[in-house]
């Protein structure tokens, strides 16, 4: 028994990712954890999207299923699982079945290299960012196959438009990524790195997040990536290919039940994946805010109580809403449920105050907070912007973002060379 505890604690204090250490058991454990975390994040995103969109449109959203609609995603999942699985008559059965699998595969494999912390990635490949961009471009294949296999013209047009849009904005994304990678090479040896953990360590070593570096070049590159990533995941305002008023849900029109939920799962996972790329490349990954300006032990301790305080804040909101629930006997179950949820959140917050736990969870917490900020931005875009027409969309991808990306890249390279010449002549 003691050996097991020693084994676990010796692993918890290692300084390598499981992939680098060649440890298959821990790699599998990390994969399970990432998978679980992703599922919870997708469920939470479903609920958050409906509630936040509703509040932006001055209505309430789902309120009935659980307290304040908290059990609505579970009800949606049960409904989707119980629905009839329809396949169109003349559809190509094998391709129809494979298309959602490919999209889900591409969306989930990306998370192998996402760095939740300095040793909290499943593995740290030498080509981390290249791998992420490449595997996320495999989802275009799944979309084309889905549109083709449905044997109907609305899905085919939707799939062709969607894949053309994704391919165009991948170019702009690639250029923005290259200009961020360029900034990692401003060190003593003069070589940069493509590995995700290496990029965050470069930001740590250079003392500023890449979004503020060479102002305004880092900011413009971040902006180009932020726009291109929304177009890449087919979200508003670039969601013409799956808009209901235009193409009756585009390439996933003929999918029902569990297969449709796979597409939906893949879309949210892809959103989280590209947000992770943006957070790692420009916003400093797992680094806490102001690592250099406010350094030293007292500030470290102040920032280390943030995870616990956040969960206690959520628990306080739950209790406040429990008090505000209508005092009617039919609402008793919901009131008790909300209070129980608040108690669970409070317990998690209290556990996060323990120093041993807080030390390991610190990095994951800051990373998740920044990605959650991006998710809120996605929902905000959906509630605010009108939809782009398809020719406007393609024009923006090729005629606006691509020249801007090239310009930022050339200027960044020039400024980096000048800086090298000034400091190391």
């Amino acid at each position, binding site marked *: 028994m003691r050996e097991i505890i020693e084994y676990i604690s010796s692993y918890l204090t290692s300084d390598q990712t499981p*992939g*680098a*250490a*060649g440890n*298959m058991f821990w790699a599998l454990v990390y994969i399970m954890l990432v998978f679980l975390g992703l599922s919870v994040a997708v469920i939470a995103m479903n609920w958050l999207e409906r509630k936040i969109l509703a509040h932006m449109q001055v209505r309430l959203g789902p309120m009935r299923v659980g307290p304040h609609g908290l059990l609505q995603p579970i009800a949606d999942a049960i409904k989707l699982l119980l629905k009839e699985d329809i396949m169109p008559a003349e559809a*190509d059965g*094998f*391709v129809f079945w*494979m298309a959602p699998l490919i999209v889900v595969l591409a969306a989930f494999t990306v998370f192998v290299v996402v760095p939740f912390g300095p040793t909290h990635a499943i593995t740290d*490949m*030498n*080509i981390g960012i*290249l*791998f992420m*961009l*490449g*595997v996320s*471009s*495999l989802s*275009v*294949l799944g979309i*084309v*196959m889905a549109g*083709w296999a449905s044997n109907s013209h609305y899905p*085919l047009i939707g799939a062709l438009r969607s*894949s053309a849009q994704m*391919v165009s904005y991948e170019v702009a994304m690639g250029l923005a990524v290259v200009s961020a990678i360029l900034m990692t090479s401003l060190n003593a040896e003069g*070589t*940069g*790195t*493509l590995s995700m953990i290496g990029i965050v360590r470069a930001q740590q070593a250079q003392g500023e997040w890449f979004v503020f570096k060479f102002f305004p070049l880092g900011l413009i590159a971040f902006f180009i990536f932020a726009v291109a990533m929304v177009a890449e995941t087919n979200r508003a305002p670039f969601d013409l290919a799956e808009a209901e008023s235009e193409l009756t849900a585009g390439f996933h029109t003929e999918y029902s039940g569990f297969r449709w939920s796979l597409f939906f799962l893949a879309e949210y996972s892809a959103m989280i994946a590209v947000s992770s790329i943006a957070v790692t490349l420009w916003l400093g990954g797992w680094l806490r805010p102001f690592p250099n300006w406010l350094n030293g032990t007292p500030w470290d301790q102040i920032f280390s109580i943030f995870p616990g305080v956040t969960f206690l804040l959520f628990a306080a909101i739950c209790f406040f809403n429990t008090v505000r629930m209508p005092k009617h006997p039919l609402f008793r179950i919901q009131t008790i449920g909300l209070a129980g949820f608040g108690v669970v959140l409070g317990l998690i917050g209290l556990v996060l105050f323990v120093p041993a736990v807080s030390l390991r969870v610190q990095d994951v917490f800051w990373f998740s907070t920044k990605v959650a900020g991006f998710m809120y931005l996605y929902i905000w875009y959906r509630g605010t912007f009108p939809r782009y027409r398809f020719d406007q969309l393609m024009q923006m991808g090729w005629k606006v973002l691509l020249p801007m990306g090239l310009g930022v890249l050339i200027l960044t390279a020039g400024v980096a060379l000048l800086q090298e010449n000034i400091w190391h002549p």
Partner: protein
Amino acid sequence: MAPVATPFFFYLFAAIMLMGGIAVITRKNPVHSALALIVALLAQASLYLMLYAPFVAGVQIILYAGGIMVLFLFVIMLVSIDRSIKERQFNRQWVVGMIAATALGGLFVAVYTKGKDIFPEHALSVAEGDNTQKIATMLYGQYMFTFEIASLLLLVAIIGAVVMAKKRI
């Protein structure tokens, strides 16, 4: 990086590649052939990772599986395949073709059995940590001319493909 269970993964990916290759040349439906080729290409990218060539694996996934095969799928969708599925699949010279392939296979077997002692073991263990940096140094240093010619070739291919596929020149 510490290698883990190398024979198992090698045989797994080799089997996937061979089955994918056989599926490419035997399926009636070109869409199924394209899907089998995508599976084979992804298995090959995994083999590159096992050969300590991560950059080539990344390039294979992005360019081959994510670019060329999308191109193939688009063209298959444009070209109507309903007529071609009902036609005869293998041409009339298939006997001569198989004899030629068997002769080539015999040549390979002869070369490999006679020469299998001249391959030294994996004596040199190439570190994976800076593979990309070394390839970049070689690409922009020793192979700079080839790099420029490759970009010129891609430009020619783009212009050629646009001209070929236009309706009226």
